[in-house]
């Protein structure tokens, strides 16, 4: 039993030796998160986090409750009870313009086939819609049109007052897994292997009715589409279960670029299979994207890839950033000339991998920065795995792990980044953890302390 003690306590057995994961030691000088606050309110998996404003966020999960938190203090502000089953979608809802109160509203959809509109300032249940035929899996608000859409087995269009405007026919039993808005009053829905483009017809003088029309079906993917995001004004990206990433033109819906095999997972798969930790298909499924002006960061299998839109190729990757599939990826604001991304994976912990250019010059062009990745692995036990940098071809870009955050005992489902308050992660272990920059927090506390002293009239400044 001493083994873990002697071995430095990090990777216990087996995995440690075999895993090609890049690891980072206990010394993580660039990791600013030196303070954490565990928030406990949920009693089931927490799957969704949404930012409400500068200092608040809401969390929701399988226990059907929505909790509103203060991101600064970790204080639980409100608990919204109304759903009887797990929550399947959560989105902020712009206040009605006519509405006198400017309270922050959120929409939640649940497996109990209801959608509820909440007021996050009062905790009031503003309105409840329960006429759904199926579970709503995704929600989207089209602010331009003042409508919102709910996607389940069919697609419904609602107005701000939660009146049903129109709906499509039954699309599929698997339902819509993702929805994005594209120009020309269109939306793209991912249904199984297909992408369907719908167009919304707003009431005109001739017809007072809203209508939604199916415009086109895109059948280029070979497998289920797992991720669908807008990248910029001209394109959107989809990723499928078998590792196809397609970049589409946002206006004419044509394929601009397609990357299918460049992940080349085979060498690593073998190792993984030996360990029986990951199944092959999972290794290349694309779960999530994030992007900046030039690059798309894709969470592919257990790895993190950086795809340059201009060069149309992968410029950096870390194939095994985590020891299980990466579920969520987000870009952090540039800091000190570097970019960073964070990934989270199935595994217990969030790992946090930086992407950084090794050389200074190319920095300006490409990815100058570090990527913090959160990864989560499916494997049961191991905690931290870092993302490694890889030199792909010529581009002198690399991904470097700058730190990992260990705290959750189960998979990290999602995270949120607050400029001022750090990271918020939610996990299947029912917890939410607030990761903060300890130094900064310490300064803030000092500030608060002296403010309080001043308020009490107890502050005496030396002459």
């Amino acid at each position, binding site marked *: 039993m001493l083994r873990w003690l002697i071995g430095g306590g990090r990777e216990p057995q087996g995995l440690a030796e075999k895993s090609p994961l890049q690891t980072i030691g206990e*010394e993580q000088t660039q990791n600013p998160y030196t303070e954490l606050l565990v928030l406990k309110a949920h009693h089931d998996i927490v799957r969704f986090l949404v930012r409400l404003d500068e200092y608040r966020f809401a969390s929701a999960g399988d226990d059907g409750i929505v909790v509103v938190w203060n991101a600064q203090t970790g204080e639980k502000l409100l608990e919204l009870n109304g759903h009887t089953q797990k929550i399947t979608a959560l989105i902020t809802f712009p206040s009605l313009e006519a509405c006198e109160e400017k309270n922050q509203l959120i929409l939640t959809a649940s497996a109990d086939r209801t959608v509820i509109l909440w007021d996050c300032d009062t905790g009031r249940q503003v309105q409840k819609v329960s006429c759904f035929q199926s579970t709503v899996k995704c929600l989207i608000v089209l602010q331009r049109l003042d409508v919102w859409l709910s996607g389940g087995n069919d697609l419904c269009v609602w107005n701000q007052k939660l009146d049903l405007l129109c709906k499509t026919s039954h699309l599929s039993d698997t339902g819509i897994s993702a929805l994005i808005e594209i120009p020309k009053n269109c939306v793209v829905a991912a249904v199984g292997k297909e992408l369907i483009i719908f167009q919304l017809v707003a009431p005109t003088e001739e017809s007072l009715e809203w209508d939604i029309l199916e415009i086109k079906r895109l059948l280029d993917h070979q497998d289920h589409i797992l991720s669908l995001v807008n990248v910029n004004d001209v394109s959107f990206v989809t990723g499928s279960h078998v590792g196809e990433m397609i970049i589409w033109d946002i206006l004419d819906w044509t394929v601009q670029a397609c990357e299918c095999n460049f992940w080349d997972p085979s060498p690593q798969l073998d190792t993984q299979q030996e360990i029986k930790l990951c199944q092959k298909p999972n290794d290349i499924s694309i779960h999530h994207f994030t992007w900046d002006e030039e690059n798309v960061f894709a969470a592919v299998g257990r790895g993190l890839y950086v795809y340059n839109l201009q060069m149309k190729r992968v410029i950096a990757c870390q194939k095994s950033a985590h020891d299980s599939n990466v579920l969520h990826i987000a870009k952090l604001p540039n800091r000190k000339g570097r970019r960073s991304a964070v990934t989270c994976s199935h595994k217990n912990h969030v790992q946090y991998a930086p992407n950084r250019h090794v050389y200074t010059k190319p920095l300006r062009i490409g990815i100058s920065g570090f990527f913090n990745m959160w990864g989560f692995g499916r494997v049961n036990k191991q905690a931290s795995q870092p993302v490694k940098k890889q030199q792909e071809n010529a581009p002198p870009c690399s991904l470097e792990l700058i730190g990992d955050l260990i705290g959750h005992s189960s998979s990290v489902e999602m995270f949120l980044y607050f400029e001022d308050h750090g990271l918020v992660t939610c996990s299947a272990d029912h917890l939410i953890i607030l990761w903060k920059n300890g130094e900064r927090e310490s300064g803030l506390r000092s500030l608060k302390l*002296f403010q309080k002293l001043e308020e009490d009239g107890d502050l005496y400044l030396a002459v």
Partner: protein
Amino acid sequence: MISAPDVVAFTKEEEYEEEPYNEPALPEEYSVPLFPFSSQGANPWSKLSGAKFSRDFILISEFSEQVGPQPLLTIPNDTKVFGTFDLNYFSLRIMSVDYQASFVGHPPGSAYPKLNFVEDSKVVLGDSKEGAFAYVHHLTLYDLEARGFVRPFCMAYISADQHKIMQQFQELSAEFSKASECLKTGNRKAFAGELEKKLKDLDYTRTVLHTETEIQKKANDKGFYSSQAIEKANELASVEKSIIEHQDLLKQIRSYPHRKLKGSALCCGETEHTQDQTSQAATTSNPDESADTDLYTCRPAYTPKLIKAKSTKCFDKKLKTLEELCDTEYFTQTLAQLSHIEHMFRGDLCYLLTSQIDRALLKQQHITNFLFEDFVEVAEKQESAPPKPGPGRPPSRSLEECPIPQVLISVGSYKSSVESVPIKMEQELGDEEYKEADVAEMSSFDPQENLDYLDMDMKGSISSGESIEVLGTEKSTAVLPKSDSQASLTVPLSPQVVRSKAVSHRTISEDSIEVLSTCPSEALIPEDFKASYPSAINEEESYADDSEGAIHFQASVSAPELGEAEEGGLETPPSQIDSSCCIGKESDSLRVRLSTPAHTPSDQDGVVSIPPQRYRQKDQGFHVDFAVENASPLRDSSSEGFPADELDPSRLLASRDVSKTSLDNYSDSASNMSSLASTSSDRTPPSAHPTGPSSERHKKRAGQNALKFIRQYPFAHPAIYSLLSGRTLVVLGEDEAIVRKLVTALSIFVPNHSRYAKPVKHWVSSPLHITDFQRWKLIGLQRVAAPAGAGPLHALSRYSRYTSVLDLDNKALRCPLYRGALVPRLADHRTQIKRGSTYYLHVQSTLAQLCSKAFLYTFCHHLHLPAHDKETEEVVAGRQASFLKLTLGLVNEDVKVVQYLAELLKLRYVQDTPGTGHPMLRFDYVPSFLYKI
């Protein structure tokens, strides 16, 4: 912990002078009175000469109207304690100094008997023959069957150490007042119940008599009444009168000014009752209508008895016991309070004083003291709700306002505890200014505190409203609110009032008892008088006559009372008069002169010195002593009622002892065997007292084990560093007892997050979770054999970055490197300290110093925020670093300790509601190292 009571030097006066003392002189506040018997070369801890009892105890006596003074019970109730001490004799002594003027009966000019709510009297007396000195607290309880409705009792704290009594007078008085208040509250309740029963009896009797009279009337229609009938009519009339009288009494007892109860925290439950009582009684005289009646009537239905015409005031009836007089509930509560008192004052005087000083000092460091000190919330609560004296009413609890030793302490001592920190801030200031500057600095934290400091520094004295009232009632009249309902209760001025105070203290006893004058109002006495008062003994002679005369006078005036005069109360003269009492002595007149201006209604300190009678004194060698001695240097009497009880060490002491009591409960309440509690402390899951502070024995044991740990493990330093810097230390082992023991020992190094809970988990066997590290800073973990990758060990390795792990079975430690200088001082394995409690104190004082550093660091503005707009963060950071390194002298990792403590201080200071939630988990990404033996 700042001081170290158990290292208090055993000093002799001569030796002290001879020895060249090079060290900085002991601060004045630490000086403890020299051992009185030091000239004989006796061991100060040896039993004092002449005492016939082994340790201090509390005696409750009664002056029974049937058998005279008799002891009722002692606390502790163990014959071993008082040994051969003659309780009967001593009861006689103490009861005979009671002067209580609880005037009951028919005062001239009043139709009905009046109850008087008498303040207790507090007296110190000594009996050299018995080698006993006592604080005596007299009180009067009401009993319908007793003569004059009163039963005089007294509670006495008996000790062989005269100084102890004198110096702890304030505390004793405060504590005994609580006990007394409790007894009296219960008694009032019981008395009211008794009155109600009596009223029912009378009512029934009246009905019966009435019926009989009617029958007789009918039988005799001859037009004249038989003598029998007349007798019946008279009887009826007297019953009617009796009813009215009793109703009046009931009304009186219910109208007891409940304000007096405020502040008697002990009798919590009944406060609202009495409140009802008062309000109700004021409006309704009919008990049946008042809402509170159920309080008294909601008892098993009472069957009225016929009362015989001739009341039987005879000596054959059995008097009620004390327990019957008070409600059983209150009686038990009182006993608990008394045994609490006994615990509280156990031990040597110097120990008591030092720990009081200690508490007072700690109290001042209210910003930092939560980190390492054991405080009980009780203390907090009490302080947060100090009794508010009613307007225009003398502070009845003013005793609490005059804690003894802390007066001296104040700012200077704070300096002393910090002075090792070389801060060059206001050096150029003069000493005085420095003090003031200091005060100002302190005040930046809490205006309240500032007040206290100022007060202590400048005034340094106590304004006490409490005098030892040898003439108790003067106070009581003053205390009574002048409401309508009570106006009638005020004692009408009768001739006696003219009597001087000195008179009242009829030291009628034929003996050696001397009433030592104890006047807490010594605040009013100037230094120069103090100087002169060793000569006070001489003054007594001139007194003797006075008092003789007074007794005489009394006899003539209130003849009816004389019978019970021995214990009965005298009417108190109004306060203006007491100046007359002391005329004739120079120093006394001085005293009077000074005290007179203070004789406002709000400050009625009867300063009374009661000399013994001359001739007896010669025979018996009495002691005459003055409480003044004990008091701290008196500077200025200008201090008014400020919330001094914040500083009252007795409260702190009390609170500490509460916990002690709880630990000792098992042993002490049941029997007097010495307690086993401490031995069990290692084994009993501390979860039983998860938040409770440790008792002395507990501390000693913890210190001992910590010492052992330091000697046994060469890597103790990094382990302790982990604790101090807030990195959770997991103690891993198979044997629960061993783990618990070590965890308890190491917990003395764990900074608290708040006052309410120590972040220590003694034993856990389930896998640890991230929340555990946030909540606990020291965890005892069971080592269980589990398949690899599962169970607690796996979790531990996963979270290894947050923890240090001490493996007891393998004698190994995994934790970050430590290279500082702080811990070696704290835990030197070559230390000469042998005893656990000494080591504990050593740790506490080192930590106190550390806290001071953290305090300075936290509260220096420029260390954290830019001094002006143009300063960059880097400048501030540089200043911070140099402050830590150069000014505070911290090396390497020591900085992190101070920073961690500073974070805790900030959190606590900023928090609106202290004690809620857990602070965030702070950690560093630093490599760990493995240490092994």
